[in-house]
């Protein structure tokens, strides 16, 4: 029997029961569709994370305080006062792999201008911070090293802050705003950066010299963290190692003792986020794959029904000369057509779903041809696997009994 005839016969048989064929395919459509959509959305998400993190600088390094035990009491990281200016100095001069370094102190303050006020956060940094964290000046200028030395009452504001305390579009440059009780002059406005990968608004910020924040607002002498930039992405690991050694020395941490600080890189963040996303994608795809399995069982079920229903037809075909293998092939082709059509419709459906999702999330849209190819092959395999037993049942029928089957 010629292959083209097999396809024609199977096609006609399926057309005789359009609704049933469609419902049977639905299982495969939903299974393949959700696998394609989930894998594609997962890939979009990690691409998006990568994009955002490289926008922040992949050579970005943060030194953070770590919780410590004092006499068996965990005092939490908030009270650790070990990071000091001298650590910044030591990093600056102690390793060739660091190009920029800035102390960071954070404070939460009420920002007041005239009748407007805004609950915001102020970050005390030095003049290098903007470059380390890829901030751009939109209006005005950065504050200077001199401002930092003099604890000058100057600041830079983010666009979210600008919009909230200057709702009528006044020029903020040169205006004096109050941060808590301290009046400060706005010397610049930052370009908008949008949300970071955690969904936090990076424009809701006021930057000021760290000395000003330390002395005038918080009245502290320590730092909350240190932000630094390695000379290149490749040098990051070496820079991290150097920083750890330097700070251990300045903090006089004995070999084998626990560090009271922690060095994190954007690269690590990137890897962490990536692994979280890929675990999530794998889990969801596994759930989708189960629905694919259910779809396959649906095909098997319908094929069994079909074989029983068409017992007489099978008997007749055998009587007029069909070999067992002809009958086997006929029913296999039917189930493969079901699964492949379901698969193709599922792929289209999944791609559209992924496109819609990434469109609304404003993520880059990626669709992997490899995933589609694999899905297609999986569909064909499902057709063969789940069609095999019903087809074999049909092929093994005894023509004498099949012809007289009621």
């Amino acid at each position, binding site marked *: *029997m*010629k292959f083209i*005839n097999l396809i024609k*016969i199977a096609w*006609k048989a399926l057309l*005789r029961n359009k609704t049933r064929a469609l419902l049977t395919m639905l299982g495969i459509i939903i299974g393949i569709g959700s696998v394609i959509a989930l894998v594609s959305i997962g890939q979009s998400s990690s691409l998006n994370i990568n994009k955002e993190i490289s926008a922040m600088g992949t050579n970005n390094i943060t030194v953070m305080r770590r919780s410590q035990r004092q006499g068996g009491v965990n005092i939490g990281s908030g009270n650790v006062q070990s990071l000091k200016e001298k650590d910044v100095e030591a990093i600056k001069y102690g390793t060739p792999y660091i190009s920029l370094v800035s102390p960071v102190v954070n404070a939460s303050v009420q920002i007041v201008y005239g009748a407007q006020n805004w609950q915001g956060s102020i970050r005390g940094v030095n003049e290098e911070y903007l470059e380390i964290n890829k901030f751009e000046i939109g209006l005005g200028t950065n504050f200077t090293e001199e401002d930092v030395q003099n604890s000058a009452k100057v600041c830079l504001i983010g666009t979210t802050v600008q919009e909230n305390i200057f709702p009528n579009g006044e020029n903020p440059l040169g205006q004096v705003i109050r941060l808590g009780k301290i009046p400060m002059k706005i010397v610049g406005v930052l370009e908008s950066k949008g949300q970071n990968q955690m969904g936090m608004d990076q424009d809701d910020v006021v930057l000021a010299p760290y000395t000003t924040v330390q002395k005038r607002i918080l009245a502290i002498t320590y730092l909350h963290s240190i932000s630094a930039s390695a000379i290149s992405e490749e040098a990051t690991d070496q820079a991290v190692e150097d920083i750890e050694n330097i700070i251990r020395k300045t903090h006089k941490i004995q070999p084998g003792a626990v560090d009271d600080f922690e060095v994190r890189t954007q690269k690590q963040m990137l890897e962490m986020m990536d692994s979280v996303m890929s675990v999530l994608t794998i889990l969801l795809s596994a759930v989708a794959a189960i629905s694919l399995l259910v779809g396959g069982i649906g095909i098997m079920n319908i094929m069994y029904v079909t074989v029983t229903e068409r017992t*007489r*037809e099978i*008997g*007749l*075909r*055998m*009587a*007029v*000369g*069909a*070999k*067992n*293998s*002809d009958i086997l092939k006929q029913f296999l082709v039917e189930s493969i057509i079901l699964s492949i059509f379901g698969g193709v419709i599922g792929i289209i459906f999944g791609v559209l779903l992924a496109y819609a999702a990434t469109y609304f999330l404003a993520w880059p849209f990626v669709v992997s041809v490899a995933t589609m190819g694999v899905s297609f092959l999986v569909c064909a395999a499902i057709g063969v696997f789940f069609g095999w037993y019903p087809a074999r049942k049909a092929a093994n029928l005894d*023509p*004498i009994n099949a*012809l007289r089957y009621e």
Partner: protein
Amino acid sequence: MTKTIIKVEKLSRVFTVGSEKVYALKGISFDITEGEFVSIMGTSGSGKSTLLNILGCLDKPTSGEYHIDDISIKDLSRDELSTIRNRKIGFVFQSYNLLPRTSAIENVELPLLYNGEISSNERRERAMYALEQVGLSERMHHTPNQLSGGQQQRVAIARALVNDPVLLLADEATGNLDTRTSYEIMTLFQELNQKGKTIAFVTHETDIAKFTGRTIMLRDGNIIKDELIQTQSAKNALAELPKQEDY
């Protein structure tokens, strides 16, 4: 000298039901020569269905010989039997066994689909010729549910003729039809027989058997009668039937 199409020698068929052995055929012998129109008769349980299955190469004898067109089927595999059925035999069943929702011409083409040597053009031509022989050229695109019982049986006969078999094997082919239509179908069989077709017609109706040329009577697995009979013309019988009343 006419050719022997069917040669049956000491044919027996034993079924094992549980631990008991049932002898459906008990070593029967007969020949059918080319151009014969034979009716095989018997009540249910006489073994005629078993004989039909063996003649049709759907089943194999337990012992004894069966030759069709000089081919012994004793040692053939299931696939080889399929090929014999495909090339040598045309089946006509009581319940027509047409594929539903499939046109008459496609139903007739069916046996040729399983013959790889035949092109799709030749297939269509031969199917059209077969439908012509049974007088249904006009209805080749009708599906079975658009045809009467008699017409459906004609399509089934065309399907049996399409592979130009050495033996037409009819199994109670008039069993589902009324008297008039039965006579019409028998007229067709007689015409085909006059054109040289060898026909074996299994029936339990003596009324139908009288239109054949020879009767083989089975009872309990043995042939109790095998005789030539005076063939009656089905066409004349049809003419003698009372005119159909219009309701």
